[in-house]
């Protein structure tokens, strides 16, 4: 076909634009002539063209033979989907919608039956759900091109579809490059965070280079987060092997293996510590940043704040060493970082100062 295709096929934003163009182009009697604009769009980026082809093949693959049934009139009438957001964002909302139902049931069964504890749970749940909706996925914007270097701004994120069927979700304020060779699929995460869902191919290793070492996956899903001089790998599915940069295992030493539900942190000083996450924890929690839910477990406040600053439009810093060494576990919503910071003095021995150059957390 047309392209000297690199490993990057298209981004999620290009896929969505392509679908819109495709529907316009099919129209037999358009209100105006879109041809000029469409041709310009097709020529603007190789990724646009590839996304268009991909969308076209999806259109032709739709299961016509199944004669899918039309939804009922009632379902159509009660549907409030406006088409603004993508379908998957709507689906995430759907899974959360039962909060009002839960509330309604709570009132219906009576407060007495539930007891004060139940009430607290309901309240906490509603807070969680409302905040969850606030921290919705940022609109994915295209920063890079098919060339394979991607960079996001503060608070921004996007998804990249690679030619082998692997996926990368690039987090806020992050930089990543992609280069596939005949022998290896190579990714370099220079800063920030990325979640990888790797298409299985045992003869073609998928290697993520990052500060402190290389992470090799075969077919698996994992998150890599760079915070100042440390890199942290959390595996949600399968196994990855990690070769720390300066820690050279001898011929008898096997590379470090990190399995599902485990997390490994390497710092630049190359003291390697393996943090085995207990089985009761949700291995996918680290990947939830993609929905705007940031989960931290026993991390220093310094690292948490550094990580948060990739999302917060308002600068947020730690004022002194003591405050930075406090340890934090909890969930923070991307859209409510300032609220989180202002509540911090209630549970930690810190103060929050609003200064012209941003929010500063200091110990007292």
């Amino acid at each position, binding site marked *: 076909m047309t392209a000297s295709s690199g490993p990057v096929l298209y981004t999620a934003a290009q896929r*969505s634009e392509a679908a819109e163009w495709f529907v316009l182009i*099919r129209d037999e009697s358009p209100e105006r002539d879109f041809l000029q604009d469409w041709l310009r769009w097709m020529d603007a980026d190789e990724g646009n063209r*590839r996304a268009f082809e991909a969308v076209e093949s999806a259109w032709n*693959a739709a*299961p016509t033979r199944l004669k899918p049934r039309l939804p009922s009139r009632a*379902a159509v009438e009660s549907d409030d989907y406006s088409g603004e957001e993508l379908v998957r964002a709507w689906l995430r909302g759907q899974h959360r919608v039962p909060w009002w139902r839960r509330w309604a049931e709570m009132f219906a069964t009576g407060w007495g039956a539930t007891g004060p504890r139940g009430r607290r749970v309901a309240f906490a749940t509603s807070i969680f759900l409302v905040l969850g909706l606030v921290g919705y996925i940022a609109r994915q914007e295209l920063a890079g091109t098919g060339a394979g270097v991607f960079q996001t701004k503060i608070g921004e994120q996007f998804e990249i*579809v690679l030619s082998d069927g692997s996926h990368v979700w690039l987090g806020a304020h992050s930089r990543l490059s992609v280069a596939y060779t005949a022998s290896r699929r190579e990714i370099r995460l220079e800063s920030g965070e990325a979640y990888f869902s790797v298409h299985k191919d045992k003869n073609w290793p998928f290697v993520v280079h990052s500060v402190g070492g290389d992470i090799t996956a075969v077919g698996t899903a994992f998150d890599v987060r760079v915070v100042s001089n440390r890199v942290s790998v959390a595996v949600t599915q399968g196994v990855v092997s990690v070769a720390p940069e300066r820690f050279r295992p001898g011929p008898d030493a096997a590379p470090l293996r990190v399995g599902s539900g485990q997390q490994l942190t390497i710092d630049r000083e190359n003291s390697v510590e393996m943090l085995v996450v207990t089985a009761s924890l949700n291995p996918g929690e680290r990947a939830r940043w993609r929905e705007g839910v940031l989960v931290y477990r026993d991390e220093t406040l310094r690292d948490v704040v550094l990580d948060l600053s990739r999302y917060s439009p308002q600068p947020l810093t730690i004022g002194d060493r003591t405050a930075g060494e406090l340890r934090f576990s909890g969930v923070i919503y991307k859209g409510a970082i300032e609220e989180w910071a202002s509540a911090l003095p209630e549970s930690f021995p810190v103060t929050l100062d609003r200064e012209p150059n941003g929010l500063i957390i200091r110990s007292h």
Partner: protein
Amino acid sequence: MITDERQSLNTKSIPAVPLTERRNPPEEVERLFREHNASLLRFICAKVGSEHEAREIVQEAYVHLLQLDHPEAVGFLRAFLFKTAANLAIDRLRQRRRRNHVTTMGDVDSAAFELSPERQVAGEQHVALLEVALRELPPKCQMAFVLHNVHGVAVGDIAQHMSMGKCMVRRYIARALEHIRYRLDMTGESPRESSS
């Protein structure tokens, strides 16, 4: 009438002469071919849903262009080329519909639909996956998509049936299509599976 023109264009038997063998092929046409052939093919393929048929139509459109007595008289040759090909595509779609009597909203449920070979092959491969993707869609989205994709109902007719604007219908269909592509991408399904 434009329709009559199209009809005659379609029925006239045009010798399929390769571009290079024609005497003095207008340079302009060759340039058009070089620069826009890939886009033109996608453009027609989007309309007829078959790569093979799209190639035939594109070829026919070029031949038509080369047979113009005064190509220089046509102001925007590129627009003319796309328009010609689009008209040919519409003719084919009409023929297909005439054979299958689809498109009236009334008999949508019993509609038979002719599938291009690409569609049949692709259908075998991802039925289960696509079925899930389709079921997940918001009802309005699903309605618009199924009517347009499966039953071949025009956007304007869907708009009337669902009492909403054409823009809204297009948006729903585009969102549905995006979601199906997303599901295919998630499983590492090759994006060009059925178009190459």
